[in-house]
């Protein structure tokens, strides 16, 4: 048996809160499955998009926010454009990701995506425009794949597709103010997405994996 759902969970305020904050009527979903049928990433997800909608309808907040699915959604908007009840599923996935971020519920297996987002945003806060070397470098180190895409690096340098130094914009102060205000208004502690525990755990797993592989 996969889940046991008690009455208290069904009556919880999760659905109401989501519908109010997000503006999307999840209760309209009649589980036709068209979203799941067209989702390009469904093959890797643990719950299909229509199952996530169902879990939201039944108030199962924790299962939804710790699922792999919400992080694997690529925001390709295929589901949104085809839903016969005109529900914006991609927007709901966005909301669930932000809520997971606010509640600091990150799945144990898909830590790379929130990590990447955080590094990207920090990058922009520091320079104003994306410093790709910094992004790739930091990401590789913190996710434990030290030598990922290393083969591509020399080709990219030679073709001058990637800059060694970052481009800084002039008015960084104004930008940093925007970041600060957004964080405050969203009541999100922006610096808390980098979970040291998770990073170390991830690195550990990768190192062990490599050692096992070499054997």
């Amino acid at each position, binding site marked *: 048996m996969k889940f046991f759902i008690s009455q208290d969970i069904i009556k919880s305020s999760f659905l109401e809160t989501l519908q109010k904050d997000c503006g999307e009527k999840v209760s309209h979903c009649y589980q036709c499955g068209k979203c799941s049928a067209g989702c*390009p*990433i469904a*093959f*890797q997800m643990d719950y299909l998009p229509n199952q996530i909608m169902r879990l939201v309808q039944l108030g199962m907040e924790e299962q939804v926010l710790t699922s792999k699915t919400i992080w*694997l959604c*690529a*925001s*390709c*908007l*295929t589901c*949104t*454009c085809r839903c016969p009840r005109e529900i*914006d599923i991609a927007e709901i996935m*966005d909301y669930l*990701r*932000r809520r997971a*971020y606010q509640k600091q519920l990150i799945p144990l297996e898909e830590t*790379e*995506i*929130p990590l*990447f*987002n*955080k590094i*990207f*945003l920090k990058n*922009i806060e520091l320079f*104003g*425009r*994306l410093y*790709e070397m910094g*992004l*790739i470098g930091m*990401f590789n180190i913190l996710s434990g794949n030290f030598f*990922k*895409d290393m083969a*591509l690096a020399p*080709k*990219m340098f030679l*073709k*001058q*597709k*990637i*800059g060694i130094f970052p*481009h800084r*914009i*002039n*008015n960084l102060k*104004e*930008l940093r*103010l*925007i*970041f600060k*205000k*957004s*964080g405050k*208004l*969203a009541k*999100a502690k*922006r610096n808390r*997405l980098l979970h040291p525990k998770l990073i170390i755990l991830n690195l550990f797993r990768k190192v062990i994996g490599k050692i096992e592989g070499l054997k």
Partner: protein
Amino acid sequence: MKYAYFPGCSLHSTAKEYDISARAVAGALGIELLEIPDWVCCGATPAHLTLHLLSLALPVKNLLAAKKLGNYEVATCCAACFSRLKIANKFMEDDLEHRGNVEEIVGAKYSGEVKVRHFLDILVNVFGLKNINQRVTKKLSGLKVACYYGCLLTRPPEVTQLDDLEDPHLMDDLMKIIGAEPVQWPYKTECCGASFSLTKTDIVLKLSGDILQMAQDEGAQAIVVACPLCQSNLDLRQGMINKQYKKKFNIPVFYFTQLLGLALGIEGTKLGLEKHLVNPLPLLREKGIIAKR
């Protein structure tokens, strides 16, 4: 024709050739692109996945900077930037209840006045296919291309208002005018894996691999794109796709501005053709589009 130009972060680095070719084409056609001073990253995917207000504030900041430049429409080449800017515009126009929050963050009032257009839209709809046809000096005959639109050019249709949702044709029309032969194929708007390029590379390999396979099955010799992330997924990762799925793809991935540039008589070296990882020069030489060695 003058436009405030928003290149976006990738056009200054990994999609350098898109920027080069777009500027070259604009110059040849007499369209002036004035780069918005001190523009910032639009936030792309990570912003709207993390902080809703930030994902709207960053584009709005850029649109305000464009407004200051003058009464121009904003032109952008990157599909993600186009999507984010348009979504921010729609939000500021429609959501009267919550736009106050964004205005507070950026420190100015804004209600969606600055119009945003994608470069493809400008070329086909504003400049006009007839006018382009008059300036074409070299027809790219015999080049079978698959026009790949990706996710963000046509979706969501209420926001982008660019082309038909399931079967877009703007790029195909442009290719026909310059003499290339666009193939009719079913994966015009299938997702390539988007921003999972670094984080979930295996997903990108599968999805982009399927796109390359479908393009090849329908007889295309090259793929034409309008989005830097699509191009990098299909081009940079082609080697890895070949290795992972034991295929032998050798399909160059062009930006539509590059092919248009070649048709307008601009030299290949001025269009960044050498920057691709899958070398397009042999194919172009074979079709007689650039001079043989």
